[in-house]
């Protein structure tokens, strides 16, 4: 595996926006213990803007850095802007991820989509159109 970029290491060392939001407007929960990575994303929305964002993760360095970078990319942005944030954007912003670690950025994107879905469900009764997390892991703990 190639080494992590400086940017990844920096975010891994000092992850931004770690934690939970008690009264979150949307919560995303993605991943499972079996796969070795889980991400929880909490969003607070005001006037279509993500005014606060927090995350927690159980996972490797890339998962921690991806989550941290995601929160930076979406915090303070409008939902329209945030909907454009893909795992590719996360990878780019991190200066790249080693091949086997790209799935961590997918985890981050899916956590975001899942949180937005939750927000939509709560506010409109309907989920995020077309939402279907890619990193969904179906296998159970054996």
């Amino acid at each position, binding site marked *: *595996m190639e080494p992590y970029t400086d940017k990844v290491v920096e975010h891994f060392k000092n992850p931004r926006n770690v*934690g939970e939001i008690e009264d979150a407007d949307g919560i995303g929960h993605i991943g499972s213990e079996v796969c070795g990575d889980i*991400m929880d994303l909490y969003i607070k929305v005001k006037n279509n803007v993500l005014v606060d964002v927090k995350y927690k*993760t*159980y996972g*490797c360095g890339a998962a921690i850095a991806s989550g941290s970078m995601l929160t930076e990319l979406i915090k303070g942005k409008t939902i329209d802007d945030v909907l454009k944030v893909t795992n590719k954007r996360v990878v780019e912003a991190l200066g790249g991820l080693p091949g086997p*670690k790209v799935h961590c950025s997918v985890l981050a994107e899916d956590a975001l989509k899942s949180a937005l879905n939750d927000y939509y469900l709560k506010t409109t009764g309907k989920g995020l159109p077309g939402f279907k997390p890619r990193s969904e892991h179906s296998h159970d703990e054996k």
Partner: protein
Amino acid sequence: MKRIYMDYAATTPTHEEVVAAMQPYYNNIFGNPSSLHFFGREARKAVDEARLKVANFLNAKPEEIVFTSGGTEADNFALKGIAFTNRERGNHVITTKIEHHAVLESAQFLETQGFEVTYLDVDTNGLVNPEDVKNALTPQTTLVSVMHANNEVGTIQPIEEIAKIITDFNHEHSRSVYFHTDAVQTAGALNIDVQKLGVGLLSISAHKFYGPKGVGALFIKKGTRIKPFMHGGGQERRRRGSTENVPGIMGFGKAVEIVMKERENWVKHLEPLRNKLIEGILNIIPDSMLNGHPQKRLPNNINVTIKYVEGESMLLNLDLEGIACSTGSACSSGSLEPSHVLRALGRTHSESHGSLRFTLGRHSTKEDVADVLGVLPKIVTRLREMSPLYKKK
């Protein structure tokens, strides 16, 4: 930055005396040992001296030692060499679920070529039950391969007992099932006597005990039916082609010499350090547990699971503090499955993901251990705070 190396099971720094022993063989005594002329003969003489040292080290005969490019080649050679050569006697091979990939993937390759392979289970401490070997032996079996000690969790197998079972089976049924052990992890730690162990083939690799990388050996007991794995010229009594890596072999010879002299001292030095680190972690960090056998264990191996956190993230945090170790988390290897060894011991996926291995060596100190015990708990606390699993508790 002060750096603490605690990954001696991955590789070791080459001993200064080993490096020195290699130097004359680059451009002074540089001949090809197969050449008949002076340059070839002096190289050959050197290689044969090293061969004698390695033979003494294992209590074998020089003609029973075949030099290879490392432990992996020795394992490939043993498995494929025996299986293919003795195919008309049977197509069944027995090994275990906790072997090194060099053995496991060779076995899997044999399966693609029509061989049957039995992968034995181990108990929660990583021990193979000799009775299981007995029960797995069939009239088709030509080879049993059980590692001497496991590289991840350090569990030492009852090789002598297994050898006895195979010998009895061979006697009773007039068979000649061969017994191979991968002793790559034990050569620097335990006395390896092929006679006492009762094995017919045994793999070692120099870089695991302060020798150079890229050189190892397969012990092949006299009379064993085995054809080459590395096909080529007539080197190594026609058992392995390729120009001998003379400097590497000379370094290997020096390394076994050093081990024979120092091993007992090393073990005396390492065991207390190992115990201190294991006890320290289990005492200080809640929800942590030891992987591998508490007693039948390599003197330098510490393998723990720390729940609710993932191994690579701990490893990288330790690395940021200058401490080098390894993990059985899948995330570190780019594969989907975490360590097959921890899984075979009955650890859950997440327990396997949360494992750390520290392996000590001759340069390890009390201070190193104290440093780890100072740093690791803080890292775990920090990571647990951001772990969704920990909250759920």
